[in-house]
């Protein structure tokens, strides 16, 4: 009999032995070493064991009877100390020598443990084998026990879901921006995150761990980079695996990232084969089970002297968390000439994306409905030409003919308790009830529920609820969608962002059923503003969704140069500042220096690559960005007021400076210009600004909605207040109200025309509590955004330089 020694009783070697015994029963004398004190079990089913859906006994692949029936000598719980390839013997830990004709490595892989301080504390474990699983089950048995999982990949999430099902409080800490970033795109990652959050699992993405804190040698908490401590009794690291190649290396086999094998699974020694996670084939290593089974087949053929070759194939991934239905296959990133087909159904939480190249499907990601996953996977593997079925491809194999997508799907999907009208706190269910009670048009809904009867921005949504409920009995008035990416209007989307707590662009795209994968130049800047205005703490400003001026903090000119405008608070400057501006203008050969209408100085014609250095120079003189490029606070123009003017009634310059200092950096739907005049002679022209203050003996008249551009409008009085402090509060409040409700690119006067002055007064003038709440929310936002972007950008001047200069190389 031929002697075969196998090192490692895992799924790959187990499958190889099955094939071998089928082909040549009784021909082999097999000795099987395994470090774990047991035989082959279905390791990928550990997650159901952890969650309690299966027991260990149910996932055993080969039991003692099977090994006995095939005459396998089992040496379980024993490690192999070394291999002497010259003498063809394997040396066990206890010194026993076992001779072989053929040797098969199936040493698998080791979990990677991040060497964070504290990684060796008791309670810090990996998720790899039955011991780890039992350890998790044991800790989960303690009432009130908490767990942290580092790693939001396949394994980490299965661990988290299992622990949660056993009643633990679980927090997943993931370094990348979305979960399962290797298998999923951002949109599918968002849906997965939502599903897991719904189960009570806390998810923290883009989060770096700093150290593991312990007490009496036992894990107590994980400390994050930002100093946050997450308490835990168990910390699971699931950040990846490393092929276990130590033994192979020590006995001199060729090893790269893993043990090198050829197409026949033979290593650099013709009598030694390797299979599974410990092998490297054509530069690739393997972690999923499908290719391992293919390898196992080839191992058995090679051992029995038949010719077969291992061919790498596309792999697909499914997550084994009950209720989270996701599928990914092939390559859905990287590469030119690729096209996307995207399908979203917010009602069912479904997202599907197919990536096509040269009329072939090369990648697929789906969430929520994965029933067609294997069909798409088949198309990928077979390289099927899909030119003829392209139009209906995304709907899967069963689809014949078709109807267009339902533009009302997003609203139809909202639960009854989703708030539609924010002003009057009216939910979708109340509107449905009103419709059932006989209100069949907008006027009827307004009269019975007050929904859309105040600021009116939810009108579109109310109409959609009418349309969904009444069907053909309701004729939708034509409304303008934001852009071709969506059927929803600005107002609809804003309401969705607020009522459904959408805090990322991926969330908006999914829940509002965007028809493109990443929006366009029309919707993205609007969404970026809505998200940062409504969720200043939760949402991260996205520079790539901003127009160039706001991305580069300078105004682009027609020749591609930029203009630079430093702030002059309230229009006041000093000889030192003027000198610094003059120096900068000379140093950077600024062709035009102009005094602006907003009482400051514009340096026009600055080259893009000089921006960081000119900002640095101006910063050194104490000046900051004037935001002359922003949909945000521009200037507060002032007259000299009581300081010098014989007519001045209040310190208009002082108020202007205070206003500019408190408002600067705030982003608004469109640009925001203010002015403060010291008396009704109004030298600062306050009554044609977005917000104007005219000082009088008895206080401050605050008016809004002026314009002096394409439209010329006089402001309308909002209120008169007695003190400077009250004036500042009211201006902050009305600015915040405008930020929260206006459509992107509407100046205040346009917004006021839509919602009415009375409504604005109700929010910020008559109701002092509401005014203070607006001020509070404004200050909360300013805690993030009141800053000098020039100082930040001047620290990274390389971003403003050309990526490369090939003018010399090209001349060769």
């Amino acid at each position, binding site marked *: 009999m031929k002697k075969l020694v196998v090192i490692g009783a895992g799924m790959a070697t187990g499958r190889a032995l099955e094939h071998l015994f089928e082909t040549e029963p009784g021909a082999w004398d097999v000795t099987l070493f395994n470090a774990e004190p047991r035989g082959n079990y279905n390791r990928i089913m550990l997650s159901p064991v952890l969650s309690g859906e299966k027991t260990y006994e149910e996932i055993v692949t080969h039991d003692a009877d099977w090994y006995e029936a095939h005459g396998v000598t089992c040496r379980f719980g024993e490690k192999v100390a070394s291999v002497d390839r010259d003498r063809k013997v394997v040396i066990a830990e206890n010194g026993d020598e076992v001779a072989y004709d053929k040797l098969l490595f199936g040493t698998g892989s080791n979990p990677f443990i991040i060497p964070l301080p504290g990684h060796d504390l008791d309670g810090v474990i990996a998720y790899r084998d039955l011991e780890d699983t039992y350890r998790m089950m044991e800790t989960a048995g303690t009432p009130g026990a908490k767990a942290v999982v580092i790693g939001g990949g396949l394994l980490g999430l299965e661990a988290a879901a299992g622990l949660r099902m056993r009643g633990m409080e679980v927090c997943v800490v993931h370094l990348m921006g979305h979960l399962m970033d290797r298998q999923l795109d951002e949109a599918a990652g968002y849906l997965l995150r939502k599903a897991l959050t719904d189960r009570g699992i806390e998810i923290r993405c883009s989060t770096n761990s700093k150290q593991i804190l312990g007490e009496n040698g036992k894990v107590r908490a994980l400390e994050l980079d930002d100093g946050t401590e997450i308490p835990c009794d168990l910390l699971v690291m699931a950040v990846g695996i490393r092929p276990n190649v130590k033994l192979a290396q020590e006995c001199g086999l060729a090893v790269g990232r893993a043990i090198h094998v050829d197409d026949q699974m033979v290593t650099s020694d013709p009598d030694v084969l390797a299979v599974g996670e410990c092998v490297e084939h054509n530069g690739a290593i393997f972690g999923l089970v499908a290719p391992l089974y293919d390898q196992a087949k080839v191992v058995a053929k090679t051992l029995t002297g038949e010719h077969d070759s291992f061919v790498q194939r596309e792999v697909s991934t499914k997550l084994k968390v009950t209720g989270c239905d996701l599928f990914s296959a092939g390559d859905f*990133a*990287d590469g*030119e000439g690729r096209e996307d087909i995207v399908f979203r159904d917010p009602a069912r939480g479904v997202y599907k994306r197919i990536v096509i190249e040269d009329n072939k499907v090369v990648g697929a990601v789906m969430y929520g409905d994965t029933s067609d996953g294997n069909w798409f996977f088949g198309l990928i593997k077979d390289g099927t030409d899909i030119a003829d079925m392209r139009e209906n491809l995304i709907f899967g194999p069963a689809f014949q003919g078709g109807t267009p997508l339902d533009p009302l799907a997003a609203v139809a999907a909202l639960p009854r308790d989703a708030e539609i009208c924010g002003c009057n706190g009216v939910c979708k269910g109340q509107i449905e009830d009103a419709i059932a009670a006989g209100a069949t048009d907008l006027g009827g809904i307004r009269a019975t529920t007050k929904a859309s009867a105040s600021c009116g921005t939810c009108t579109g949504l109310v109409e959609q609820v009418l349309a969904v409920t009444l069907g053909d009995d309701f004729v939708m008035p034509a409304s303008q969608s934001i852009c071709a990416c969506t059927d929803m209007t600005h107002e609809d989307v804003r309401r969705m962002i607020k009522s459904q707590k959408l805090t990322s662009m991926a969330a908006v795209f999914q829940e509002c059923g965007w028809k493109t994968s990443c929006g366009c130049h029309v919707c993205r800047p609007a969404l970026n503003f809505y998200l940062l205005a409504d969720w200043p703490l939760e949402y991260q400003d996205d520079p790539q969704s901003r127009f160039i*001026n706001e991305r580069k903090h300078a105004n682009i000119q027609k*020749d591609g140069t930029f203009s630079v405008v430093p702030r002059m608070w309230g229009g006041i400057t000093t000889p030192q500042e003027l000198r610094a501006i003059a120096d900068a203008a000379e140093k950077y050969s600024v062709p035009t220096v102009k005094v602006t209408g907003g009482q400051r100085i514009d340096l026009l014609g600055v080259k893009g690559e000089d921006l960081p250095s000119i900002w640095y120079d101006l910063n050194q003189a104490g000046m900051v960005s004037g935001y002359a490029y922003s949909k945000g606070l521009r200037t507060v123009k002032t007259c000299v007021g009581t300081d010098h003017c014989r007519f001045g009634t209040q310190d208009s310059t002082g108020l202007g400076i205070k206003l500019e200092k408190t408002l600067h950096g705030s982003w608004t739907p469109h640009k925001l210009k203010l002015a403060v005049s010291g008396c009704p002679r109004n030298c600062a022209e306050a009554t044609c600004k977005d917000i104007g203050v005219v000082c009088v003996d008895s206080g401050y008249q605050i008016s809004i909605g002026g314009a002096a551009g394409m439209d010329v409008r006089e402001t309308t009085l909002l209120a008169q207040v007695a003190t400077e402090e009250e004036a500042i509060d009211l201006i902050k409040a009305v600015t915040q109200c405008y930020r929260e409700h206006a459509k992107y690119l509407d100046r205040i006067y346009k917004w006021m025309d839509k919602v009415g002055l009375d409504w604005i007064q109700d929010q910020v003038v008559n109701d002092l509590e509401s005014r203070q709440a607006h001020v509070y929310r404004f200050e909360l936002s300013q805690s993030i955004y009141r800053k000098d972007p020039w100082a930040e950008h001047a620290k990274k001047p390389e971003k403003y330089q050309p990526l490369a200069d090939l003018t010399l190389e090209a001349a060769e």
Partner: protein
Amino acid sequence: MTDWIDIAALEDVPQRGARVVKTRFGCLAVFRTAEDEVYAIENSCPHKKGPLAEGIVHGKFVTCPLHNWVISLETGLVQGADEGEVITCPARVEDGRILLDSTFLTERAVA
């Protein structure tokens, strides 16, 4: 055979962003999409020579920052009702590095 020049690391260009590469024939704009695809096109809009590298990138298109012309990064063709074309330069990513076609850079004039 194509000769590729290593220009920079992929992460030097932000996702849905662009950077400029100077050549003897003018500037190229090197784009990186949300999917980490890389494209290089002439950095000058056919309309009024707007710097395309400063535009908003969406899908495989860029919108010129001056007057919102939309240009395909793949073909260089202007989209929609406007007409025009910019020169494209073969580009690819290998091992996290951005590579441009050197023959293109030496033999073909970029306007």
